[in-house]
């Protein structure tokens, strides 16, 4: 039972890790890396380390994903399709590269 659970977790982990490499959209890659951390935290629970699992789930899947996403927004790689449509509809805010130096 526990072997199959671990096998399932590792397969999710590996598929998500492959997604981090192969996904074209950087934001999707960030989400995939969050899934890697989540699967890894399940793995830590299976290996009887609940403290490490908590830290991995909170920091790996939560905070580092937010930090990566905010950093992507800062360097201008945040391309959700809805936001691109919005930028096209309103000409005042058509600056996908949100770089402070470029606005000065």
């Amino acid at each position: 039972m526990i072997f199959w659970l671990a096998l399932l977790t590792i397969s999710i982990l590996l598929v998500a890790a492959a997604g981090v490499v192969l996904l074209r959209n950087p934001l999707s890659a960030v989400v995939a890396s969050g899934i890697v951390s989540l699967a890894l935290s399940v793995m830590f629970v299976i290996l009887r380390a609940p403290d490490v699992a908590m830290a991995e789930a909170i920091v790996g899947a939560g905070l580092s994903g937010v930090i990566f996403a905010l950093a992507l927004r800062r360097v201008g790689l945040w391309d959700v399709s809805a936001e691109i449509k919005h930028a096209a509809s309103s000409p005042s805010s058509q600056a996908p590269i949100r770089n402070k130096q470029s606005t000065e």
Partner: protein
Amino acid sequence: MKARHISSLLFLLGLGLLLISIFQNLPYSNNLTGIGANINAQAPQQVGTANIVTSVILAYRGLDTLGELLILFTASIAAGMVLAYNPDELTDSVLGKQQQQPAGFILQTAADLLMPFLLITGMYIILHGHITPGGGFQGGAILAAAFFIPLLTLPGKRMDYQLGSLLEALAGISFISIGLIALFWKGQFLAPLGEPGVPGALLSAGSLPLLYLATGIKVGAELANLLARLRDA
């Protein structure tokens, strides 16, 4: 498919095979060195924690935890230096106008609902760090998330960085002063103070809950400040 992708995927494949083989050969509940068994047997009486991990983190290896706090502090300072900005400059730019747009209904409702629960969960994990899994780092990260989610719904609002820095400094100072009190009283830096008490009781393990409270407040204030700076950057 570039060569970079193929090499990364090969690395992933190897890592996965390694993980599976390690997992199959893992010696469950076999003592490798004997240190773990000794700590498991002696920590509840010596330190008074029901969660053995906490006894290692704060009592046997308190200095390492202080080093870990120092690393996080240095990283947060470095990020703050990189992200430091002039607030007047931001409001005039395109970025400032875009950030004034209000958040959506789902995000606002979820933030209002989540914040009190996140606060309670974070404080629970910090205060019960010596009884249940978790502790200052995990609870502090949850507290940071609790203070960051409302900032997402209020784009115009600025976080009070001074208050966060003050809380962080006070928590760091109290962590080190508890260690110094132990140095003068028991002759060892960060030695556990007070009676161990009954393992499993909320008021047990001497000064370890205070250390975890300081850790939690420090980590929470630090990460909340860092996330708010990243949002404004």
